[in-house]
C-alpha cells in the first residue's frame, strides 16, 4: 500500500506502469484519475485544495486498509494533491490490483466514494469574479450507503 499526499504533480503513466508491474498473481489493475474540470461558464482560473496535514494521511490509510479488509486485493495506491491546480491538471489517483476484476473495480469505487466525503480535503474555485468553496454534494454522501 502506498499513500501520498503531495503538492507536486504526479505522472499518471509512470505511476500506473510502476503499480502494475511485478504483480504476477494480480489479473486485474484498475486506476481512477481525477482531473480539474473547468466551470460551466468556462472561467475557472484555478482550484485551490486545502487539507489537514497529519489527519489526511491517517484518513487515507484507514480508507485504504478498510478496502484491503473488504476485498481480495494485492495492492492499493492513493495519491492526492493539495495546493493550486489549473483546469486539466490531475488532482488525484487511486489504483487497485486484484486477482479478479470485480474486486479491483469495487475497491476503486469504494476508495473514491470515501475519499470524496471522508478525507479532509476542501476545494476552492477561483475565477476572475471571486472565490467559492465547493459545496459537498448530497449524492456523494449518499454514495457511501452502498458500502
Amino acid at each position, binding site marked *: 500500500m502506498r499513500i501520498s499526499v503531495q503538492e507536486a504533480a504526479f505522472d499518471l503513466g509512470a505511476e500506473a506502469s510502476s503499480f502494475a508491474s511485478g504483480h504476477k498473481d494480480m489479473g486485474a489493475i484498475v486506476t481512477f484519475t*481525477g482531473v480539474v474540470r473547468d466551470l460551466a461558464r468556462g472561467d475557472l482560473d484555478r482550484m485551490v485544495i*486545502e487539507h*489537514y496535514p*497529519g*489527519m489526511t494521511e*491517517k*484518513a487515507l490509510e484507514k480508507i485504504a486498509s478498510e478496502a484491503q479488509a473488504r476485498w481480495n486485493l494485492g495492492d492499493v495506491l492513493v495519491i*492526492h494533491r493539495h495546493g493550486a491546480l489549473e483546469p486539466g491538471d490531475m*488532482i*488525484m489517483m487511486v489504483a487497485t490490483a486484484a486477482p479478479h476484476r470485480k474486486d479491483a473495480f469495487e475497491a476503486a469505487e469504494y476508495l*473514491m466514494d470515501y*475519499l*470524496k*466525503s*471522508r*478525507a*479532509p*480535503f*476542501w*476545494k*476552492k474555485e477561483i475565477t476572475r469574479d471571486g472565490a467559492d*468553496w*465547493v*459545496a*459537498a454534494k448530497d449524492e*456523494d*454522501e449518499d454514495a457511501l450507503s452502498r458500502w
Partner: protein
Amino acid sequence: MDVLYFAWVRERIGVPKETVDTGAKTVAELVEELKAREERYAAAFADLSALRVAVDQELTDFDASLDGVREVAFFPPMTGG
C-alpha cells in the same frame, strides 16, 4: 488544547489554529464557549449541521468527550477526490 479551523470556517474565524484554555467536557460545550466569545465564532458555528468535527485527527460528532484530547478541528463537509 489546540483548536484548528479549515476552509470557510478558518476564513470566518480568521485564524487557522489557536490554543484554547477550556474546561469544556464535550465538543458541544467547547463550541458554546467559543460562540460566547466573539461574533466571528458565533457566525462560524451558527449552523452545526453545516460543520464537521475531528478530535485528535479522527472524525467524530459534537457529543464527543474532550477528556485527554490534544487537538480539535472544525471544518465544513469534505470535498476530496
